[in-house]
């Protein structure tokens, strides 16, 4: 296997206040290969969004803090960079798009300016050149009347158009890695497909690796090469997408699979996972999934299982398998 584009080791992001310590991300490890798509999947509250923000070092301060770990991107530990050096990476070598295109775009600035400012910042373009390139970028993400769109404000665009504008913005400097945090969740189903297709084609064209964060296994199935399943701020399973879908090992992953609606199967009802994701402020002492796990035994509640490589490249955090 080639040298990974991004290597995350033992990443820990805590929210620390006077009275509490919330372990939002608690020792996460994974790798992203150049030009591949890594899907991070999990329910809300599992720490996947915070993981992605940690990679960008955009954890909301002052309480949120990366307390430990390494994020090696193209051979550099991002966590050791100064804020200024980090800002040279953001938007340039690493792009990011967010879930809510409505709120993620600045409502009072023109779309063109919001795209162009990335180019001005990282490519040192003039305003006029940046605008020209912005039009090109908009066209490349599928806007037929890009010349007008640059001078429009976000509220004049539809949800799908906004997300495409976001993608244009994130891809403006042709980053090596695109982090997409629930990019399609807020969109209609048909628009979702268009956006995913767009991401796929950009990936193929530019060779951009993607971290795709979602709770939607369907999206993962369509897009991802590798999958990381997160629960309670930890990785509970990681493997290739095929391995995860064909042979899920962790009870949580299995439960997730059960909850996917499958059209041609005849099932009485859709299985759902009983219980809720534990609060990061109040994790159980043993396996974090144990309280909801149908297979849980006494020992599961006592001892935190290690992430083990059960098959080559297939890691699971469960002592029962």
């Amino acid at each position: 296997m080639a040298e990974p584009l991004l290597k995350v080791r033992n990443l820990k992001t805590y929210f620390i206040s006077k009275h509490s310590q919330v372990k939002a991300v608690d020792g996460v490890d994974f790798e992203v290969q150049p030009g591949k798509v890594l899907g991070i999947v999990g329910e809300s509250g599992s720490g996947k969004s915070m993981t992605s923000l940690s990679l960008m070092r955009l954890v909301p301060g002052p309480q949120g803090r990366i307390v430990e770990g390494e994020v090696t991107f193209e051979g550099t530990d991002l966590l050791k960079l100064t804020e200024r050096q980090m800002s040279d990476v953001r938007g340039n070598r690493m792009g990011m798009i967010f879930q809510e295109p409505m709120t993620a775009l600045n409502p009072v600035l023109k779309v063109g300016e919001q795209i162009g400012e990335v180019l001005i910042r990282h490519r040192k373009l003039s305003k006029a050149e940046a605008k020209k390139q912005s039009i090109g970028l908009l066209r490349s993400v599928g806007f037929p009347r890009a010349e007008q769109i640059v001078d429009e404000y976000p509220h004049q665009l539809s949800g799908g158009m906004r997300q495409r504008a976001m993608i244009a913005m994130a891809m403006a400097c042709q980053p090596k890695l695109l982090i997409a945090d629930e990019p399609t969740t807020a969109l209609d189903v048909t628009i979702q497909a268009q956006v995913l297709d767009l991401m796929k084609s950009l990936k193929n064209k530019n060779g951009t690796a993607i971290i795709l964060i979602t709770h939607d296994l369907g999206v993962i199935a369509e897009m991802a090469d590798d999958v990381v399943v997160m629960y309670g701020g930890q990785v509970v399973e990681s493997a290739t997408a095929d391995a995860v879908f064909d042979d899920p090992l962790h009870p949580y992953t299995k439960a997730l699979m059960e909850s996917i609606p499958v059209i041609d199967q005849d099932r009485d009802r859709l299985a759902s996972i009983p219980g809720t994701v534990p609060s990061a402020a109040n994790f159980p002492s043993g396996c974090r999934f144990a309280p909801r796990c149908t297979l849980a035994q006494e020992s599961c509640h006592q001892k935190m299982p290690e992430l083990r490589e059960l098959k080559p490249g297939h890691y699971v955090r469960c002592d029962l398998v």
Partner: protein
Amino acid sequence: MTSYVIRRLLGLIPTLFIITVIVFSLMHLMPGNAFQALIGLNPHIKDAAKVIAQRTANAGLNLSWPQQYVNWIVNLLHGNLGTSFEFQEPVTTLIGIALPNTVTLALTAELIILIIGIPVGVFQANRVNKGFDISTSLVAVFLYSVPGFVFALFLIFLFSFTLNWLPSMGTVTAAVPWSGDLGDRIQHLILPATTLALPSVAYYTRLMRANTLQVFFQDYVRTARAKGLRSTRVLFRHVLRNAIIPITTQFGFDIGGLVGGAVILEQIFTWPGMGELTINANLNRDYPVILATTLIFAVMVLLGNLFADILLASMDPRVRYN
């Protein structure tokens, strides 16, 4: 845009109409008559009662209220605000002297408010709960809770009486060759405008701090940072540009308010503006002046609101002109 402004201006007319009716009614509920004090107390006017009656009739005060109101409106539409009972001068002359002074004072105060309030609020938010934020927040709360006239007297005591740096009264220095120069006028503006501005500076600082803090946690600010923008650009182009929108609205509302708020301070600083004119007119039942000053205060507030709306529309593309 132009048609929007015109439509809004036309929309002011009904409001103004109602205001004039209310003022007119309230004014006539005030006891007393200007001429009783002016003429009735002069021991040498023969048949004072007759003279009072004559002057009252000349001023049209013995007509029915509706008739008086109609006369007033008709004159107003001809640009005639009547003649002051007390000064025997056209009201327009008196206002022509007073209004520019008050507007100058109010606008200067607004300038001070914005120049201090916005940056301080932003820096507070940028270093929230740090030394600068906490100390200036305490100062702001203090400034906001102390009445303006206390500051007026304190500033006069300090800068005028003790240090002798700044004049304590008027808009120009009397009896010097440089009287009325720009520098002279600015010197005279500093103390009253600062006093007028201080409580609002505190308010704007708090408002700006709160707005900025709120905007800091908006998704689009995160987006801006994810794009690798320098923190200055994030702050000024993305945060400030949004955080300032509520301020501009407040600013418009305040223009009218400051003109009215200057009333008491004008007395202390002997600033020959609308305040002194209004107080005198009310004490002396000088109806034409009362009506005119009230109308102007009302117009100021309404124009301020309109100005606020236009500013808002020009700052926030989500607001449409309709």
